[in-house]
């Protein structure tokens, strides 16, 4: 069994850091693990993107031919099958010299109630012992149901494998006691990795600190276990509305429409069945009436 103790960070209380709990990975002691991404200290360096692509051997898009977005300093643009980490640049410039940048390293949220896992017909998407959500590439057949089901638009096809792919929270690393590549590479500790319980505590303290410093808009997105989707194991500290970061305010499970939609379809089927039977019955009654009245039958049809 592997163990991991976080390294002390410069400026932090060394004694507190060295007495921090030791996390055990794998086996029966496995705990829910997650990311806490503090967007206020993200500098947009994209080291996490590079580390992710490097560790997970994700190929370059379009064979490495660079394509500029043209309207943003961010050229990755979105999470997809080849980019499992993406630093979003939210460029808010209502006037030429009046604006701000918001940086957010986006990733799979590893939802406690995961829409992708719910709809996956092959069982390729599983929940691991770390409460993370992983797509098994050798089981996935590329039906893309998970892509449409994810409330965050995280999942995409990897053209190299022909399967749907996304962040695994470096399952291969964390199961041997290593930290995921992205959080390991993050130079500002904007991305922090640990047990969800511990991260929530740390995140709450950080929000308090920011508010005390005057950043009153600071709040946590997805840290509430009683919130949408039962909480997100990868949650964020934000300072603007979720929509500004491209995040849904109230992410929901795809199955919310299942019962109503199926009930309406069933009602439609019953109505059509009744309609078909009524039509035949009516035709029979018309025929009887015509026979009784000795009326000649109508023309076969109006076709040539």
């Amino acid at each position, binding site marked *: 069994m592997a163990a991991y103790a976080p390294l002390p960070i410069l400026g932090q209380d060394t004694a507190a850091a060295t007495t921090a709990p030791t996390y055990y990975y794998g086996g029966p002691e496995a705990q829910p693990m997650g990311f806490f991404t503090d967007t206020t200290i993200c500098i947009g360096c994209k080291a996490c993107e590079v580390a992710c692509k490097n560790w997970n051997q994700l190929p370059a898009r379009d064979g490495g031919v660079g394509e500029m977005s043209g309207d943003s300093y961010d050229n990755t643009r*979105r999470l997809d099958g080849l980019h499992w980490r993406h630093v*979003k640049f*939210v460029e808010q410039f209502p006037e030429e010299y009046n604006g701000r940048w918001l940086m957010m390293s986006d990733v799979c949220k590893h939802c406690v109630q995961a*829409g992708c896992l*719910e*709809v*996956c*017909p*092959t*069982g390729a998407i599983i929940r691991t012992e770390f409460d993370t959500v992983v797509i098994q590439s050798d*089981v*996935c*057949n*590329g*039906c*893309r149901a998970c*892509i*449409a*089901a*994810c*409330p965050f*638009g995280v*999942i995409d*096809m990897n053209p190299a*494998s*022909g*399967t*749907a792919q996304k962040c695994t929270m470096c399952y291969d690393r964390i199961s041997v006691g290593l930290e995921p590549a992205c959080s390991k590479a993050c130079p500002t500790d904007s991305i922090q990795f640990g047990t969800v319980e511990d991260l929530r505590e740390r995140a709450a303290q950080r929000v308090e600190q920011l508010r005390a410093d005057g950043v009153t808009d600071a709040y946590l997105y997805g840290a509430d276990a009683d919130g949408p989707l039962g909480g997100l194991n990868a949650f964020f500290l934000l300072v603007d*509305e979720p*929509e*500004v970061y*491209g*995040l*849904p*305010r*109230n*992410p929901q499970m*795809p199955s919310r*429409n*299942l019962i*109503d*939609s*199926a009930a*309406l*379809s*069933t009602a*439609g*089927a019953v109505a*059509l069945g009744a*309609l*078909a039977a009524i*039509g*035949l019955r009516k*035709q029979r009654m018309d*025929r009887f009436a015509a026979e009784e009245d000795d009326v000649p*039958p*109508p023309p*076969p*049809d*109006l076709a040539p």
Partner: protein
Amino acid sequence: MSDTWFTAPPDWLLYIVPYFFVGGIAGGSYFLAAVLHWLGRPEDRPVVRIGYIVAAIGAILSGLLLIVDLGRPLRFWHMLLQSERFPLPILKPWSPMSIGSWALFLFGVIATLSAIGVLADERRIRYHGLRVLYDSLAGRVLALFGAAAGFFIAGYTGVLLSVTNRPIWADTEFLGVLFLVSAASTAAALLILLALWRVEADVRGSTVRWLAWFDGWALLLELVVLAFFVISLGSVASVWLSWRGLLLLIVLVFGILVPLVLHFRPVWIAERWRSRPLFTGAVLVLAGGFLLRLVALLASETIHGPHAGIQGAQSLLWP
């Protein structure tokens, strides 16, 4: 802003639009054939036979379309069996794609058995005994199950779209019933055309009239459901204020309203324009049914995800 605005499109277009169309026709044809098989007269039998054969061809074609649409087509069987614990089955009743895969498989088997029964009955295949699959109590019981499975195939596709998080699809509960009613209508239209082509004029008369009558009422129902579909979208209905709305308008006018008039007023039309109202109406219904599915899929597929969300939110919050 709807929470569905922040998601990514699954690229269900090239093979999925034809699948929704063909699968709907297959399911609807089997249902109509089964109704005529149970409640119809001997004169209806040619159309019953055509319906079962259309259903079998449609079901097989549907399976092929779905397989080639997969990122890894050779893993199509992962939909039914657990690849890691072969041959244990996998079925997730709350996942429309999982239960739909099983339904299509079962429907394909039933429709093929019925079609084999028809071919044996017509002595087109050597084993005449196989006609029991069609012309017996067992054949009729099989038809009951096939009709249920057929309707499932016709409707689950819309339910599948609603059980996502995509704009339009997940913003309504009416897509399933819309596709179902449209499937019944397009199937009736195709059976009308095939009856006009393959069945003698003195035999097909009452069957074709029933199909046209049924198609007319199905179109009327489709009109009502389409209205509910658009209304149920709420603020997302603004997506129709674009080329998407124009396509939907074409479906409404040429795929529903004009065929309605053609079906309910055939004599009136024929007297004035010397046209073939049944034929024209059926062709328009088929084209409209295909376009309806194309619009329903394309309208959402062309809305791209989180980035669009940022831009949309910025214009919303930073005017």
